[in-house]
């Protein structure tokens, strides 16, 4: 552990600290950001109403759209001379979201990134190859400062130029790799072409994130690279990489809770959900000065794990690997359904990635769900009863997994419309006005 005092703080003490920090945060936000003041007034909450961390749910949520509306500096809570760094997250639509960091913010972020590296066993003796992009994106600089904070040697490669990455990885004896999981696989592929045996290198851990990945991908990476592949989570609005990281147990990502307070809410109603239940991840940045963040809706779907303390000794609660985005979520008869869950069922049945389309409609007052599945050769049988058995099996497993009954329709290959080679997954025909 990089900072055992903070990372293994007894829970009662941690909650007390969070309460103090929340009170300060709310006062700063209310006092210096007109946007927060207006939102709190709308909700009829005053800073003095917030006494402990349990009062958090009285505060309003903020969204990415709110952030964008305050472009560029409307969310900043400090005079410009106190800002020492500005990052921005790429907006696929419209303006980016802009975050400013004070010197303390950079320090706290580096601390959390250092903790993330230490989660994989990294120390001052290590060499950390940072192959996340450097720039407005927080990945590269975030891990870079984390490596320096740890006392390790940071190797600022940024993304790309894979052959050179591999050459230096080998020649410099790199021990820790930070990049997206898909880039780790690309490194392995290119190394094989170059005739470099990565399994002989002294690599020991990798902090992989910035995109969704699966257990199967982890297994694959660990087969090709001699390291423990750990999931790292972060987003620029909250700080950057290092909000949460897996420990060597590889069973959920510890949130660094003395800085970032996680909640899981029902994305439809906004109600907080108990641990172990899946919903939208919401963060409050307890120590942030430049851009205070209160109940920010990340749109990421996960859950807070409810399986007791982690053997590693860290007391920060763990979030599960991300399960999807609220943007993709469907609500069918009041039940949250993600296309990824449907895909999971289909993959488990045949071990392949079949093309499918979820069609949601409403008959009378009842939502209906139909799932069209393209019959590939591995699914096809010459016998009607076997195809019917396949259809029933999909039906039952969807029902068991989602608690929603779906009509399963087997369709011919290539009949599901594809845009840019990527299949459209959902068609919502409900007219809800």
């Amino acid at each position: 552990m990089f900072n055992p005092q903070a990372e293994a703080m007894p829970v009662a003490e941690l909650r007390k600290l969070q309460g103090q920090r929340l009170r300060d945060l709310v006062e700063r936000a209310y006092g210096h950001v007109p946007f927060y003041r207006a939102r709190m007034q709308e909700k009829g909450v005053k800073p003095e109403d917030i006494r402990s961390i349990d009062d958090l749910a009285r505060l309003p949520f903020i969204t990415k759209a709110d952030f964008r509306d305050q472009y560029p500096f409307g969310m900043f809570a400090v005079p410009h001379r106190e800002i020492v760094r500005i990052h921005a997250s790429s907006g696929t639509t419209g303006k980016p979201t802009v975050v400013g960091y004070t010197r303390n913010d950079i320090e706290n972020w580096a601390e959390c990134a250092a903790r993330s590296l230490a989660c994989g066993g990294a120390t001052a003796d290590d060499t950390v190859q940072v192959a996340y992009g450097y720039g407005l994106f927080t990945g590269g600089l975030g891990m870079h400062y984390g490596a320096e904070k740890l006392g390790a040697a940071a190797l600022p490669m940024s993304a790309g130029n894979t052959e050179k990455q591999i050459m230096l990885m080998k020649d410099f004896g790199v021990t820790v790799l930070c990049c997206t999981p898909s880039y780790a696989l690309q490194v392995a592929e290119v190394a094989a072409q170059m005739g470099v045996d990565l399994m002989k290198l002294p690599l020991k851990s990798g902090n992989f994130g910035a995109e969704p990945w699966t257990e199967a991908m982890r297994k694959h990476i660990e087969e090709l690279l001699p390291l423990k592949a750990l999931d790292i989570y972060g987003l620029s609005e909250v700080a950057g990489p290092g909000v949460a990281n897996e420990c060597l147990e590889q069973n959920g990502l510890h949130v660094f809770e003395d800085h970032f307070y996680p909640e899981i809410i029902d994305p439809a109603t906004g109600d907080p959900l108990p641990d172990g239940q899946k919903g939208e991840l919401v963060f409050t940045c307890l120590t942030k000065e430049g851009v205070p963040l209160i109940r920010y809706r990340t749109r990421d779907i996960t859950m807070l794990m409810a399986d007791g303390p982690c053997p590693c000794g860290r007391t920060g609660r763990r979030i599960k690997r991300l399960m999807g985005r609220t943007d993709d979520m469907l609500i069918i008869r009041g039940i949250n359904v993600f296309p990824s869950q449907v895909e999971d069922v289909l993959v488990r049945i045949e071990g392949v990635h079949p093309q499918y389309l979820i069609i949601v409609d409403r008959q009378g007052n009842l939502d209906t769900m139909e799932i069209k599945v393209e019959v590939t050769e591995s699914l096809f049988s010459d016998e009607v009863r076997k195809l019917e058995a396949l259809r029933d099996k999909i039906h039952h497993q969807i029902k068991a997994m989602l608690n929603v009954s779906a009509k399963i329709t087997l369709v011919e290959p290539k009949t599901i419309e594809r845009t840019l080679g990527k299949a459209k997954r959902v068609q919502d025909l409900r007219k809800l006005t």
Partner: protein
Amino acid sequence: MKVRQISIFLENRSGRLASVLKEVGRAGVNIRALSLADTSDFGILRLIVDDVDKCVKALKDNGHTVSLTEVLAVEVPDHPGGLAGILDVLSGAGLNVEYMYAFVCRATEKAVVVFRFEDSNAALAALKKAGISILPAETVYTL
């Protein structure tokens, strides 16, 4: 002795069968026998053709889901109870028929029944033992 039959997955929509048969025709493949199994949602078209490989290639190139299945073509004696006699042999041997369909052979004017068994080797042995005539694959393709 075993005949290679092509099975094609079809959605139960108008025009699907016609479209598949057109592709077969365009490939210059001649159909010898055919059967269609259907449910309310989908169907399985089963074809015996003169050029199996060419037909499979044409269908796959057009994006169809295709599989090859081994079936037996059995000549049925032309008298009352002819087919029943064959089925007796099969049930006596404990063999289950997955599905079957019949057509008439132009050359011999005899009825031919195509059988699909779970275990076609066992079926072949049982039918041979009972002295029932099974058409060689070449004969079926060139009927």
